[in-house]
């Protein structure tokens, strides 16, 4: 796989999972937020720094934030108290029920539905679904 990863060697799957869960909790706080206290400057890259004492996590996140800052991206570092963020349940993978593949000219190449075993089988295309 051709994947560009960020320099900090401390980042691993557990770090990525923690960051993902933090962002889902913060998202729910934003949606539930009545007074704007969880607002993020428009378009900024949000970097969350939790109050759990995990210095290695915080240091890596700051380093990554600075990487994006040097690329010209606005970055918003946000300290968060975990006790203030809503819990989110672990989510099941979203299930795809149908797919449409397109030709380079925009015409439909194939319309398929998901079979019970995860394979795709030909299907009729609904008229109301545009591209």
């Amino acid at each position: 796989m051709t994947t560009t990863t960020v320099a900090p060697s401390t980042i691993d799957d557990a770090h990525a999972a923690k960051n993902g869960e933090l962002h889902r909790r913060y998202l729910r706080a934003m949606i539930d937020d009545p007074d704007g206290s969880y607002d993020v400057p428009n378009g900024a890259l949000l970097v969350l720094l939790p109050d759990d004492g995990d210095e290695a996590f915080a240091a890596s996140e700051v380093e990554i934030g600075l990487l994006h800052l040097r690329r010209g991206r606005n970055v918003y570092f946000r300290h968060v108290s975990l006790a203030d963020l809503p819990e989110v349940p672990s989510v099941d993978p979203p299930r795809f029920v149908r797919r449409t593949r397109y030709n380079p000219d925009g015409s439909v190449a194939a319309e398929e539905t998901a079979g019970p075993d995860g394979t795709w089988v030909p299907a009729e295309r609904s008229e109301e679904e545009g591209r």
Partner: protein
Amino acid sequence: MVGRRQAGWSGRERTREYDKRVGLSDDVARVRFVTVDRKVIAYTVQYEPWVAGAYRPAARYDSAHGQPHLDLLDWDGKVVEKRWLASTSLNEALEDALAALDRDWPIWREAFLRRRPR
């Protein structure tokens, strides 16, 4: 189309837009959503890998067309494949999109690089 709305308030609608880092990579996701009274009424979560010195849209979870779906994009931003998701509330679909992208970004990144023009 949520992407065309200005961030901020419009009547009871509130539009927000921010970016988050994705997975282990130095790629980002551009998150935009519109709420009315804590209910999500539209969203996009667009995955933008950093490739050849630029952030490039490669995949987009989207609530347009009345049903949550995933668009896979080519290098010109055109949709090459659309995958429809089972119906759910848009609040749930938006959270699912973030979780799915954190899990699946290597697949979408690899597929996007395979579509790179020669």
